[in-house]
């Protein structure tokens, strides 16, 4: 009995933990599929988190918060697109720059406006008629707030867009062989601007999911590096939305279990050093990938700026 409760709560916790990763990783997937690596995800998440938090802090309107995060995220995505597509800047570095910028500015604005961490009323749990009250399943799947569901809904949508729409086809083409796409009359720059901006928006939502849905507070460096894990998860998922989600869930599940281990070990009487517990998700992710060992070719043009007549 106690064990099922644990399982249920672990699963629920995993789903919550995975939410920001799914938002951010999906966004990054679009950018990378079109050939742009954005290492600045964490910075965008932070500014998105603050924007959402501040909007709600001032107005109490949650949708306004989401909107703010989305807009801020897309603006930063647009900036990243300008830097990496138009100015053809080395994507690795400009990403790090964007990260520092977001890390600093989000905290700066916070200190200038709200000053000390102050809780807000974030997205409440969505209560579904019967579902929420289902014994175990209810707790696992139907005890969450709106943004959690949005994140998971975005997975099939993203997959559909990438694989079944003309835009998706253009994204894949631009990421694999920009010259060819260009010769077929597709504007490589336009596609990349769109994906990176979209990715920024998703990253913004990832931030919002932390500050106004899961934690309902803001603090300096609220994400504590989750954006970088999100980028890693894109590689784990080999640029496929469903696999990316799988990676996020795996990572988060182990993380959730890891927290449980610490508390049930008293019962079991064993002693796991907390350092190793905390290590677990990272180790498991790598090991899983060893055994999955799918050698998927990354988008050929990833991190390569496109210019006509380059050969």
């Amino acid at each position, binding site marked *: 009995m106690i064990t099922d409760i644990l399982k249920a709560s672990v699963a629920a916790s995993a789903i919550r933990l995975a939410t920001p990763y799914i938002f951010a990783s999906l966004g990054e997937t679009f950018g990378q599929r079109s050939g742009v690596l954005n290492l600045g995800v964490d910075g965008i998440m932070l500014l998105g988190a603050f924007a959402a938090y501040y909007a709600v802090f001032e107005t109490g309107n949650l949708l306004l918060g989401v909107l703010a995060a989305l807009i801020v995220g897309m603006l930063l995505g647009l900036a990243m697109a300008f830097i990496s597509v138009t100015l053809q800047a080395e994507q690795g570095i400009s990403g790090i720059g964007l990260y520092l910028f977001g890390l600093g500015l989000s905290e700066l604005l916070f200190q200038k406006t709200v000053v000390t961490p102050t809780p807000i009323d974030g997205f409440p749990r969505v209560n579904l008629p019967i579902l929420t009250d289902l014994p175990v399943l209810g707790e696992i799947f139907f005890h969450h707030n709106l943004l959690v569901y949005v994140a998971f809904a975005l997975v099939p949508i993203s997959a559909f867009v990438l694989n*079944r*729409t*003309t*835009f*998706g*086809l*253009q994204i*894949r*083409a631009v990421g*694999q*062989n920009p*010259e*060819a*796409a*260009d*010769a*077929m*009359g*597709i*504007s490589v720059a336009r596609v990349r601007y769109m994906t990176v901006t979209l990715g920024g928006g998703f990253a913004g939502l990832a931030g919002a999911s932390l500050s106004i849905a899961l934690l309902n507070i803001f603090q300096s460096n609220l994400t504590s590096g989750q954006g970088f894990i999100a980028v890693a998860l894109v590689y784990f998922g080999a640029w496929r939305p469903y696999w990316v989600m799988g990676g996020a869930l795996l990572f988060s599940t182990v993380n959730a279990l890891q927290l449980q281990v610490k508390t049930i070990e008293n019962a079991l009487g064993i002693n796991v050093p907390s350092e190793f517990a905390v290590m677990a998700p990272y180790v498991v992710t790598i090991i899983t990938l060893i055994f999955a060992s799918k050698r998927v*070719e990354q988008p*050929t043009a990833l991190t390569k700026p496109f210019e*006509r*007549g380059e*050969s």
Partner: protein
Amino acid sequence: MPENLLPTGHRRIEQMRMQGIVKKFPGVLAVDHVDFDVKAGEIHALLGENGAGKSTLMKILYGLYHPEEGHIYLNDQSVVIRSPNHAIQHGIGMIHQHFMLVPSLTVAENVALGLKSSRGLILDLEVVSKRIRELSEIYGLQVNPNSPIWQLAVGEQQRVEILRALYRGAALLILDEPTAVLTPQEVDDLFRILNQMTADGHALIFISHKLHEVLAISHRITVLRDGKRVYSIPAESATKEMLAQMMVGRPVVLRYDLPPIEPGPALLRLEGVCATSDRGDEGLKNVSLNVHAGEIVGVAGVSGNGQRELAQVIAGMRSITAGKIWLNNDDVTSHSPAAMNQHGLSHIPEARMTDGVIKNFTVAENFVLQNHGRKPYAWGGLFMNFRSITRQCKTAIKDYEIKTPSHETPIKSLSGGNIQKLVLARELSRQPRVLIAAQPTRGVDIGASEYIHHRLLEERTKGTAILLISEDLDEILALSDRIVVMYEGAIVGAVKRDAADVRTLGLMMAGSKVTV
């Protein structure tokens, strides 16, 4: 249908004129005040050596490059072609010399790329596939709309390119070296299609380094040299020799006579070799083959029938599933490429740009790709000896007449012809006992081709065993002592030089067993 419409329902381009076109690249006047025109129902051929400016001129017409000077007129209306998109809207299509396909996407996806979908935002691949099938019916171009490009042989990819252009119903179609990779039959098919298209009222521009093709298909011929238009002539009044001379500026030998040589021992031996192809099917089926010292064995075949796999297997770049391989009587079955090199193998790879050289390395660095760790290029295998590398490379540049500013130029800024010469120089300088030459003159102009052929014949007289893999039958016929034909991964026939003729070879390549 109304007079000014094509069967595809698109508007005809009665006439296209380019006037006083100038295109500069840093340090190069690629196109120098060139006038060029083509009419509906006409095929206008464009000739010239590598780097003469043909592709550039066409890329301008297709909106990929923008000219510094000059005007383009469509049906006597001046137009500015800003982008490929724009060109497509004007009914101009282009088949690029270096394929413009996305390897990871399927044929259908590649065709659909950049087109409006009948379902708005959502892809309509079924519709596209259907139309593709129709077109391949009409023009007899077999391709499976659902197979990804990377699985297709070069020839098949070429067909996709053509299909795509037809699909878009281009009224004016530019073909930049479309036949470089096709077999005689394929070429005949292509020409049938092209004639059909001109009959329908298309205007066609045709670029090739193969003079007999040009003479066979085109109505008018224009020759470019170093960016200038040096000559324009109706096809019927032209001859191979004179065209060759026009391009190169000196008489060119187009036929070789092989001095009879007593073939020595078999230096390369394959016995029942099998291997899987990239497609995962049987790439090589139980191939047995001998190449003797002082002998050139030509491997003919439609591209994608195992030639690639054959070369890679011998070079140690592809593992074999069955059979044995000997170099100089040493069993080298499933040895590494390095080991193969050690055993005196040289290999001119098919994919020159991706396998043969490292684009961003200098000419000199590329010159020592395999031997960089050996005397005289390295001390004790540890430190590079640039002095001797430079010396050797400079000699090679001189001996092989490689056009390059210096030995320190990044090789990517050489023309394919010159890149190929460097590869040749490198491979021959390693004094091979066995040489694999895969598509040695693809896309290389006749001047360079002639040169390369002479070098191969020299090697032959030196007593090297040469395996010449080519889809250019003329080349095969011109150089080989013996010819084997590959079909679906197996050797379906072997012919002696004098017994060989284009027709029978063509039939074998098409799969029909012929015994000579």
